[in-house]
Structure formats: structure tokens, C-alpha cells
């Protein structure tokens, strides 16, 4: 009986020590996020730029209220970085001197990319833990089996 309990304790110790753990050593880690910038160019139908045109940007989650306001430069250009945590149709409106236009730009849920150079995902950690526990439990049960 003591031998069996010693084996069980040994397997439990191996299980605890075997799980992935943070290594506090001379490591480095880089986290990154890919952002998108939307550039628009507003022109009159004649091709002339709408220099100084007033711009209003609406986010998908609040179509009634402006998310951002601004003005085009002299060449009719305007840039902004949408909040990619809000996927859907982003609406940009440009107006000047009684002329105006509106454009809708779809931003997908997978547009924003974040990541890092190391670490495991939660799913990977769970799977590894389950495999480890199953392996150790099975081994322990083997040694604890009743002898015929």
C-alpha cells in the first residue's frame, strides 16, 4: 500500500511540474497589432479636388452619431484609422459648397490582427493539460489495478 501511494504522489508531482509555465529567464516578447488606415480622395464630378471639404465618419455600431469629423486637405484627401474592434460598414461623408457624396467601406471582423512572438493559446494549454492528466491517471490506474 505504501508503495502504491508513493507512486501516486510521484505521478502527481510529475503532473504539476510538467504543465507549461512562464519562464522567467532572459527572454523577450513582442506583441503586435496590424491596423488599417483608410485614405479617401474627394473630387467634384469635373475631377477637381474638394479641397477643405467637411468629412464625417460613422462607425457601424452607432450609425446616427459621428464617430469622427474633420476636413480634407487642399487635394481633397482625408485619412483615418478605424476602430477594427467594430466590424461592419464604415460610412464616410464629404460635403462642400452644396455638393456632397457618401461612401461605405466594409471592415471585417478578421481585419484587426493581434499577436505575439511566443506563448500558447488557451485551447492549446487546455489540450496539453487534458493529455497530461489522462496519461498520468492512466499510468497510476495501471499500477493500482487489482492483480488477478
Amino acid at each position, binding site marked *: 500500500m505504501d508503495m502504491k501511494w508513493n507512486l501516486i504522489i510521484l505521478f502527481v508531482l510529475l503532473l504539476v511540474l510538467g504543465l507549461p509555465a512562464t519562464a522567467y529567464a532572459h527572454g523577450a516578447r513582442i506583441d503586435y497589432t496590424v491596423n488599417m488606415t483608410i485614405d479617401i480622395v474627394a473630387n*467634384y*464630378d*469635373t475631377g477637381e479636388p474638394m479641397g477643405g471639404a467637411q468629412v464625417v465618419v*460613422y462607425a457601424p455600431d452607432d*450609425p*446616427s452619431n459621428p464617430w469622427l469629423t474633420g476636413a480634407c486637405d487642399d487635394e481633397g484627401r482625408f485619412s483615418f484609422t478605424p476602430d477594427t474592434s467594430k466590424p461592419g*460598414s464604415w*460610412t464616410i*461623408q464629404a*460635403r462642400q*459648397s*452644396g*455638393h*456632397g*457624396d*457618401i461612401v*461605405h467601406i*466594409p471592415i471585417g471582423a478578421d481585419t484587426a490582427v493581434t499577436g505575439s512572438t511566443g506563448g500558447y493559446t488557451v485551447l492549446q494549454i487546455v489540450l496539453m493539460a487534458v493529455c497530461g492528466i489522462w496519461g498520468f491517471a492512466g499510468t497510476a490506474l495501471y499500477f493500482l489495478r487489482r492483480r488477478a
Partner: protein
Amino acid sequence: MGKRISILTVSVLCLFIIALIGCAGARAVGTLQFHANGEDFVREGFVSKDGWSINFDHVYITLADITAYQTDPPYDPHSGGELKGKVNVGLNEVYTVDLAEGGTDAPPILVGEVQDAPAGHYNAISWKMVKASSGPASGYSLVIVGTAEKDGRSIDFTMNVDKECGYSCGEYVGDERKGILEKGGTADLEMTFHFDHIFGDAETPMDDELNLAALGFEPFVDIAEGGKLDLNMGELHLGHVGEGHCYCECH
């Protein structure tokens, strides 16, 4: 006694279930209004590109097949094509409205409304400008009545247009976004008519596309009194949604 209680209990339960079903089945609807707007050009008058000071007494326009759409992806009027929406609501009648009604401070004209329109964002609209079958504009799709003055000369004019046009428009462009209808709420869409596109505008640079395409008032002087105008409505881009674009076909 016990039987009565059982019958009462079952009745209450049935009523409760019916109420639950009714609430669960209630649609998210609201009121969608349709407005027509001749803007300050019509309400206050303006000076044409060739110097005529024009004021309007009446601007009768006859509208039919007025339909609002929830489109996804949003309809692009620049490319034209059939306007299809996930949800369509519209007015079933033909309406003759006077864009000059109410004077200088009047709001846009309420043409009609749909009281059980499904909630959502109506980001496109279409309508037809058709000949009126009766009333002050009978036989014409557009009748303009007013006065033009220049260099001490004053002309009372009535201009009649019998061209019929269809407009397919994208989202309204203006100070605020329109057509966002919430459950139990009210939203509106606007059919905007830019009459400076016909006569031009002295306050706009003469080399602006608007004035280059506009006819001014001078060509109409000789036919101003009861004359029928032969306008190329398709090229004049009369119909807009605020400052937003419409695809137009006229015949």
C-alpha cells in the same frame, strides 16, 4: 369548488400563454415619413446665373412609386442598376405637392408616411416624377409659377414640363443622417430638388459645373407666359437626396 378553481387556473394560464405569444410575435416597426424639399432656392428665391432674380409662387411636382429601401451592400447611384432592398416600404398613391408652400420659413413638405415600417436603416429611395392627372398641374410632371426680374423688367412666368423621370438614389447626405428607424420611433427620408440646376446660381462661380450645365433664365423669357418647356431633365439632375446622388432616367 375544486372544479371551479381548476377551470380558473387553466383560463389564467391560457391567457398568460396567449399574452406571451403576442409579445414574442410583436414586430419591430415604426413610422417612416417621406418629405419633398425644394430648399431655400424655392422658398426664398435666388438669382440665376444670368442675373435674373427669381421668386416662386408655386412649384408643383407630381410624385409616384415612392419607395424606401434597406440595402446591403448600400446602393451606389453612380453605377445605377436595379435598386433592391432587404426591406422595401413605400407610398401607394400619386402625390402632387407644392414645394413653395408655406413661405420662406416652411419646413420640407410631408408627402406621406408609412406607420408600420420595419425598423432598420433605410439607406436608399426611389421615386418617379409623373404627369398629374388632375389638379393645378394636370397634364404635367412639373409646373413652375413665379416672377423673374432683371434691369427693371419684371416677367410673371408659368413653366410646364411634361417629361417623366425615374430617380434611384443612395443615402441622404446632409447635416444629419436620415432613415434610421428604431422600434416605435419615427424616421424620415427626403426627396430634394435642386432648382439651381435649371437656372444656375449667381452666387456660385460661373465655371462651376452647376452653372456650366444650367440653362439660366434668359432662354425662357420668350416662352415664360404659359409656355411648355422642353428641358433635358436627365441632364439637369434635378432630383437629389440632400446633397447625395440619384441615378436618373427620363423619357
